[in-house]
């Protein structure tokens, strides 16, 4: 089936655009970048439709690393989980590539942007197709690299490069956990192949599996922006909006969820690790949702919303409802990509304005953007029959099955989600226009992807019955349908929408007075619980100051420099003594050489060469 | 063992006797040839047609005063002509003149000794040959001599490269370094000679070899080391009597060696140009008989009085020789000798012919020609030959 073509096509696009793009016209760059991704999508579609995926289908290419007991093959594998991810990544990726034509039309570094996007596609598809942990890790690190490159796309702006650095460094912590997990897996399983590892998982002691599970979870927390490593994701909005949509909403950040779901056979035997995932997930969901309530930057709102929704996915996989987690992953990819792209369209319309307070009344001016974003907002609020309802409901059902309090917190979070998303919608599209720019509708090349995603957000829940499709992959969980729970969560969503309407459309002053009433709480939430400041004080400052005081002034200046200088000084002294030998006279040199060779021959003779 | 030594000694005496006589008479032949090219009679006084001129020359050179200038480096001054002569004669040791013969029940080769690496031996000896000239010029402590020997050293080093490369290509065809086997590999007629045979006739190598050989022997048009109008007499300005004669003889010995090498490498050695059954064995008889008959005719109609007796006598000798070539007993070894001599003689004649015809080159032209034309041409020829030989095998 030549699975390697799927990631290789974007790689070719990256190489061509990256190496020669500077001299290409924009249309040629578009053709290469989008063509490669579209072909990749087509090939992936062919693979998914053409293969019988009830069993994993693996292709072996070559032995990558051969070292002692360690054998790493470069293998790609496809099963139904991979198929879902492939479709999401290539499909949404292709749409966002198209959207980017319009969004990036007036930006510098056009070829660079598309080259990086293609490179990202390559790594993401490698990650998804990988048949062992190390190849997955290659993709994992590669998407991290692309994320870094694209967050810092406006590298002449300080905050963008800082955000890129932050994302990179925070992710290192997670990767550290992932690496340890791989070492531990190899030590205990003797292999890193998925098939071999997951096949043996059932027979291994629970404590060991728990350790592996927790370490993998640490990696997933870093990549998927869970507590306490979520801090990089909101900052990552410094990148161009299509990047936010593709990498920081739809695909890369879900890699942690994918990896956790992929490792289900480890987790299923490590209940403690699963509990940890569920708890972290629900905590993140709730925590991020509260922050989202008070943000004024439209992209920040959706960023915290992303963190929150990723928390939902974690709850899903943590409760054993892996298929529900993946289901939500897919629907989230639809509506969150749409929200970001829509907000990008809004920002585009306002020539770069991102603050909600400077918007308003855009409903009539950019009608199509408004309509599509409404679809997404309803979907994320969990109102039936939009896509978000089905997946969120599946997760909440599983959560209730696991522990009722998870369900209740999740439901409250769902209400908050509906509230802040509609708050953003109402602030942006309703009321009077408060800005100064002259808004204009986005070009068709941006609107078509929006429309497609709107259709998917609205009907995706019906169109793609992911849990049933994935039934062959994951262990079946018998959870009875409960109309009451479904109703309650839907009502929570509706309540959130109503509250938002009340506060921002019906009585615009109410929000401010409410904020004044709970001033302390509002300040806390508005400043994101001062998490960045706490991290700064607790981690960053000690490291920086400690490095400066101890590592630099003591270790570096004292020991390392001292050693180097000392060596130099001694060498100079010895050289000064030896300089006397250097008479510049070749014949005396020859005499010394002769002396040396006599010594060597005598030494060899004495040492036993001759008896 | 004893017979081996005796045979070797006999062969050495015969070969060197013949060689030294040939050297002496080669000088006479050259003077005659050049004289006829220049439409004058040449040596004529001593003996009939000056035939005894070489004897007179030898007597003159031996009896001349042996000058030894006071400013020379004695040892090397004396060693140089000796060295030149020795090295010039040494190559003859490995040159085969003909096939195996039986004399008085003893089977032997018409060759002093056969080496597996005969060609390399000749090359080696000729490559040291330059010392004689270089040392002679240097030890004379005379700037003309020094200039002459410097020119000579540079020239001989330069022309040795195309010479070696030109030698290499026929070796590729014959696949041996032994001079005797080299001839064997070319047996069977002119179209089997290395100069003519496929896959790639070595005619170019032959021409390159001859040109380089002219330079190696310091012959016109490459006789810069002894260009008398620039350098008095070049490297042997300070030499006289027999020491001078040694240089002279070594030059002629080198010519003979080189001609022998050309014959062996390119012209099939002692092989007849076509097989005996088509009458190649009659060629010497016909030639000698023709010469004898012509002499008889001129004896009957003499221009001068004394020709009435001398020419018929010469004609009788020629006819006798023609008859001898018809004797089957001697034909087996005389025919190879005849063909070998004929080929060597033709090349020697070419040496003289060129000397009588061409002017001398300028020094920079000489070096430029070697490095810019001869060397690349020889290289190209060798490459092509190697390629075609590899292709064919």
């Amino acid at each position, binding site marked *: 089936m030549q699975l390697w073509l799927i990631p290789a096509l974007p790689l070719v696009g990256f190489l061509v655009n990256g190496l020669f793009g500077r001299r290409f016209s924009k249309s040629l760059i578009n053709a290469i970048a989008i063509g490669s991704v579209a072909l990749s999508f087509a090939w992936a579609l062919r693979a998914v439709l053409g293969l019988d995926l009830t069993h994993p289908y693996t292709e072996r290419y070559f032995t990558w690393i051969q070292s002692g007991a360690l054998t790493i093959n470069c293998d790609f594998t496809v099963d139904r989980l991979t198929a879902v991810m492939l479709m999401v990544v290539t499909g949404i990726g292709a749409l966002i590539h198209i959207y980017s034509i319009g969004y990036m039309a007036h930006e510098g570094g056009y070829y660079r942007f598309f080259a990086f996007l293609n490179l990202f596609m390559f790594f993401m598809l490698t990650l998804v197709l990988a048949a062992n942990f190390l190849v997955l890790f290659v993709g994992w690190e590669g998407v991290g690299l692309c994320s870094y490159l694209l967050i810092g796309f406006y590298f002449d702006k300080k905050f963008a490069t800082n955000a890129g650095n932050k994302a990179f460094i925070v992710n290192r912590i997670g990767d550290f956990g992932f690496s340890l997990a791989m070492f531990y897996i190899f030590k205990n399983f003797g292999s890193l192949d998925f098939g071999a590892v997951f096949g043996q998982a059932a027979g291994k002691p629970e404590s060991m599996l728990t350790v592996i599970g927790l370490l993998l979870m640490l990696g997933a927390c870093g990549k998927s922006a869970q507590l306490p490593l979520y801090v990089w994701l909101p900052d990552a909005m410094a990148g161009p909006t299509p990047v936010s949509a593709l990498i920081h909403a739809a695909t890369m950040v879900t890699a942690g969820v994918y990896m956790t779901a992929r490792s289900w056979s480890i987790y299923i035997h490590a209940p403690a690790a699963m509990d940890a995932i569920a708890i972290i997930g629900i905590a993140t969901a709730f925590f991020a949702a509260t922050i989202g309530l008070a943000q004024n930057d439209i992209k920040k709102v959706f960023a915290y919303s992303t963190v929150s929704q990723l928390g939902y996915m974690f709850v899903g996989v943590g409760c054993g409802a892996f298929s529900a987690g993946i289901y939500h992953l897919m629907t989230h990819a639809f509506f969150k990509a749409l929200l970001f792209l829509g907000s990008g369209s809004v920002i585009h319309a306002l020539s770069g304005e991102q603050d909600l307070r400077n918007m308003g009344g855009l409903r009539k001016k950019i009608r199509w953007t408004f309509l599509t974003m409404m679809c997404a907002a309803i979907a994320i609020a969990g109102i039936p029959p939009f896509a978000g309802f089905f997946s969120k409901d599946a997760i909440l059902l599983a959560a209730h099955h696991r522990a009722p309090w998870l369900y209740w917190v999740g439901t409250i979070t769902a209400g908050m989600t509906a509230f802040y998303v509609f708050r953003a919608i109402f602030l942006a599209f309703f009321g009077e226009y408060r800005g100064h720019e002259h808004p204009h509708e986005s070009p068709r090349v941006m609107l078509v992807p929006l429309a497609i995603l709107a259709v998917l957000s609205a009907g995706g829940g019906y169109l793609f019955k992911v849990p049933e499709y994935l039934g062959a992959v994951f262990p079946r969980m018998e959870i009875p349908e409960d109309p009451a729970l479904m109703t309650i969560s839907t009502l929570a969503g509706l309540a959130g929408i109503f509250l938002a309407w009340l506060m921002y459309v019906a009585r615009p002053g109410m929000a401010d007075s409410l904020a004044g009433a709970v001033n302390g709480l509002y300040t806390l939430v508005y400043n994101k619980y001062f998490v960045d400041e706490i991290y700064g004080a607790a981690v960053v400052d000690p490291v920086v100051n400690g490095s400066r005081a101890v590592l630099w002034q003591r270790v570096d200046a004292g020991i390392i420099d001292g050693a180097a200088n000392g060596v130099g000084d001694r060498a100079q002294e010895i050289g000064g003594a030896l300089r006397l030998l250097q008479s*510049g006279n070749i*014949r005396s040199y*020859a*005499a010394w050489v*002769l002396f040396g060779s006599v010594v060597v021959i005598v030494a060899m003779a004495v040492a036993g060469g001759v008896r | 063992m004893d017979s081996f030594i005796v045979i070797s000694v006999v062969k050495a005496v015969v070969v060197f006797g013949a060689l030294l006589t040939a050297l002496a008479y080669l000088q006479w032949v050259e003077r005659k040839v050049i004289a006829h090219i220049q439409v004058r009679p040449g040596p004529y006084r001593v003996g009939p047609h000056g035939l005894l001129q070489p004897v007179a020359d030898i007597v003159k050179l031996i009896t001349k005063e042996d000058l030894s200038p006071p400013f020379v480096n004695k040892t090397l001054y004396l060693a140089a002509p000796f060295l030149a002569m020795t090295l010039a004669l040494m190559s003859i040791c490995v040159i085969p003149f003909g096939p195996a013969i039986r004399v008085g029940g003893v089977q032997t080769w018409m060759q002093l000794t056969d080496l597996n690496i005969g060609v390399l031996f000749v090359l080696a000896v000729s490559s040291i040959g330059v010392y004689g000239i270089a040392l002679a010029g240097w030890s004379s402590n005379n700037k003309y001599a020094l200039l002459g020997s410097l020119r000579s050293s540079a020239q001989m080093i330069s022309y040795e490269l195309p010479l070696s490369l030109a030698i290499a290509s026929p070796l590729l065809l014959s696949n041996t370094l032994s001079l005797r086997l080299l001839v064997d590999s070319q047996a069977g007629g002119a179209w089997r000679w290395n100069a003519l045979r496929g896959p790639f006739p070595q005619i170019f190598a032959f021409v390159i070899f001859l040109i380089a050989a002219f330079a190696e022997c310091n012959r016109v048009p490459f006789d810069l080391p002894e260009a008398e109008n620039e350098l008095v007499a070049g490297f042997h300005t300070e030499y006289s009597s027999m020491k001078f004669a040694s240089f002279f003889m070594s030059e002629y010995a080198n010519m003979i060696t080189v001609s022998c090498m050309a014959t062996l490498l390119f012209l099939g050695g002692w092989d007849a140009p076509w097989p005996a059954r088509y009458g190649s064995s009659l060629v010497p008889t016909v030639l000698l008989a023709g010469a004898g008959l012509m002499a008889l005719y001129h004896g009957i109609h003499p221009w001068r009085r004394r020709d009435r007796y001398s020419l018929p006598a010469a004609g009788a000798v020629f006819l006798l020789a023609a008859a001898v070539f018809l004797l089957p007993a001697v034909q087996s070894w005389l025919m190879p000798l005849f063909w070998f001599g004929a080929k060597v003689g033709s090349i020697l004649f070419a040496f003289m012919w060129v000397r009588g015809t061409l002017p001398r080159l300028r020094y920079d032209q000489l070096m430029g020609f070697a490095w810019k034309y001869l060397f690349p041409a020889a290289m190209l020829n060798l490459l092509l030959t190697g390629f075609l030989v590899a292709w064919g095998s």
Partner: protein
Amino acid sequence: MGSVPISWFLTLSAVLFALGVAGFLFRRSIITVFMSIELMLNAVNLSFVTFSYQLKKVDGHLFSFFVMVVAAAEAAVGLAIILTVFRNRKTLNIDDVSSMKD
């Protein structure tokens, strides 16, 4: 027809090598020093050929062949350097060419 002990060849090689070293040490003309190096190389070649005989393998011949090649290259470059030195310094005394120190 007595056979020659292998050690004689090697001793000859050693003697020639030592003479080369002596020439290198005690002679002052650059050219003679250079020639002493050639002498040492020749001595080494003799050892190679002798070992080749002793081991009944042709490899020693190859080594001495390569030594010759290197010696030829060395002679070409070395003599060119000597020419240059002489052109610039008007001397061939090796002790006068010690500007690397000063």
